């Protein structure tokens, strides 16, 4: 069994695929150093990330298919699903080995799989864009956090940058413990300690919250309750569009409050 070990980065993964092509070895598994477990009987190949190899393969993919297709592969990589490396390997292999551009041939399993995964990523990143709720802090930074299923924060940064170019903001992934900070000049990757932010609820500590924040959260909750038409109640559709895992970040759903209310009724 041939086992390729790469360093978790996207560049590393493409280097690994490049190496496999070059050495003419068919990998059976590709794993990152993080999820690597030693396997006694495997032939191990430790991949040293090489940006030249990455660029070379990246350009081949771009030439053989399209820029858009490169984005598809990157999105699939961000899914961090178990076994995604081999799916990407199979997909890239198909692209490199076929003369025609097969990125739209959905009757091929490898194509459809990658395409479906990247669609999931697209949906998840869109949900983050929809349901991010910024809280204003005393130093005028707008903070939002979430724990998306996939590692989609990098896909949302450009959107937030275009939209909120005149305010400082932070978007933070509490599951993967990293985020991005925009300081009116540029976006930087950051990590935050646990002391000022509750990673469970995504809420900023009371004492660093801006004075107006509570009022606007209350206004928003009021608005949300008033705009609802009781005669049309349709909880099934509601739950379908607004998955429960996002509720804790939404001031309008205020999970704690709702929960206690229901307890009283019972």
């Amino acid at each position, binding site marked *: 069994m041939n086992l390729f070990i790469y360093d978790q980065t996207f560049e590393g993964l493409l280097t690994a695929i490049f190496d496999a092509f070059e050495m003419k070895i068919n990998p059976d598994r590709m794993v990152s150093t993080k999820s690597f477990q030693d396997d006694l009987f495997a032939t191990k190949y430790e991949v040293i990330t090489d940006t030249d190899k990455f660029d070379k393969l990246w350009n081949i993919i771009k030439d053989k298919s399209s820029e858009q297709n490169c984005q598809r592969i990157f999105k699939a990589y961000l899914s961090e699903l178990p076994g995604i490396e081999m799916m990407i390997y199979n997909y890239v292999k198909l692209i490199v080995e076929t003369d025609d551009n097969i990125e739209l041939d959905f009757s091929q399993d490898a194509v459809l799989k990658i395409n479906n995964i990247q669609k999931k990523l697209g949906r998840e990143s869109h949900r983050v864009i929809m349901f991010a709720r910024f809280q204003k802090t005393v130093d005028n930074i707008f903070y939002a956090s979430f724990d998306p299923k996939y590692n989609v924060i990098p896909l949302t940064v450009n959107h937030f940058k275009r939209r909120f170019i005149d305010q400082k903001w932070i978007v933070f992934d509490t599951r993967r413990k990293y985020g991005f900070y925009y300081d009116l000049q540029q976006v930087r990757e950051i990590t935050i300690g646990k002391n000022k932010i509750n990673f469970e609820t995504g809420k900023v500590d009371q004492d660093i919250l801006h004075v107006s924040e509570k009022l*606007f959260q209350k*206004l928003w909750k009021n608005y949300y309750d008033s705009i*609802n038409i009781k005669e049309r109640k349709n909880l099934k559709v509601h739950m379908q569009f607004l998955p429960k895992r996002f509720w804790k970040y939404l001031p309008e759903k205020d999970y704690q409050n709702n929960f206690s209310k229901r307890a009283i009724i019972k």
Partner: protein
Amino acid sequence: MNYDIVNKLKILANAAKYDVSCSSSGSNRPNHSKGLGNTAPWGICHSFTEDGRCISLLKLMLTNFCIYDCAYCVNRKSNDIERATFSVNEVVELTIEFYRRNYIEGLFLSSGVLVNPDYTMERLIRIAKALRTKHNYHGYIHLKSIPGASADLHYQAGLYADRLSVNVEIATEQNLKMLAPDKNFQSIFHPMTAIKNQILVNKEEHRKFKHTPRFTPAGQSTQLIVGATPDDDQHILNLAENLYTTKYLKRVYYSGFIPVNPDDKRLPALKEPPLKRENRLYQADWLFRFYHFSIDEIVNNTHPNLDLEIDPKLSYALRNPWLYPVDINKADYQTLLRVPGIGVKSAKMIMVSRRYGRLTSLNLKKIGVVLKRAKYFITCNELKSPTVNELLPDKVKTIILNDNKPKRNQKSLYQQLRLFPLN
């Protein structure tokens, strides 16, 4: 900002909720000047209420005082309800602060008619103008244009807003006059035509001079109330078609009638709003706009109303079984779209995928075609299941209706034969 505004927001959001339009799509307003916000052409929803509707815009009434007395409206002057009016600054601040927190995609501002139409329209414009010029705001703005306001004011509104809308509400003029004595079709269609013409002029100018300011880039929309009057679906859809083709409307919304004034004798007493009918009307609307159907094919004199049990496309297919089965590997795009169970996305995927080879039913399933419904109307490489012509339309309808029910309620369509019949 204090208790007062909390209360006002409650009253005026409550007053605005019966307007169904909430889309934020169709406009492209990139942020070049380091201002606040941008508008993406595809629109973004930010929350969903318990009735399953999306919240994309901050939907408010500037005031719920109104000099009109329309039977279907909660804000009519003869109703004894709490009334309030926002100041310009209050609406501006709410919009900006909500927008910065990513609660909303923009503002949807409507108003009851104060004093006279011009006076009201002018105040709406002041808010849009303040947002755009003072606060450098690039988010979405949807303004309700007040019937009867002057053409000049409509023009100004269009310079700041992304979308303008005038609501038709009732599909026949005679019924409209009965329910809303202060309105007539002329006062509604006049501004609609004026806005349409202005949009066309602006498009032409924009072609010549790139820097011409945009006039309502997301076009105009309207709303029709369904179920308040005895108008049939054929009438409603024909009016919608007319609006799409002659007034170039971007959207016609259908709003199931909710009896907000139960004591009014002019209105029917409904147990619950006609939600299913509303849903079918939207489906028919989609068939017209995205599936290359004409309204005549969906509703006509022999079938003036939509079938509430099955969707309009399936009902069309069952009425015209001789058009099927369709060969997945040969049919053109328009024909594929007419197959129940195949949507725009899967039709497009079929078109691109079959260039590489023949498609099988397994491929179709993976592409996302609803085979449960489509299998009676297609042939593809190897699929051999009875088509609509072999089973007859009525049978197909029963099978599909049975399939749609939850498992526990499904009846087996076939019975095992008795080995020893008793008599």
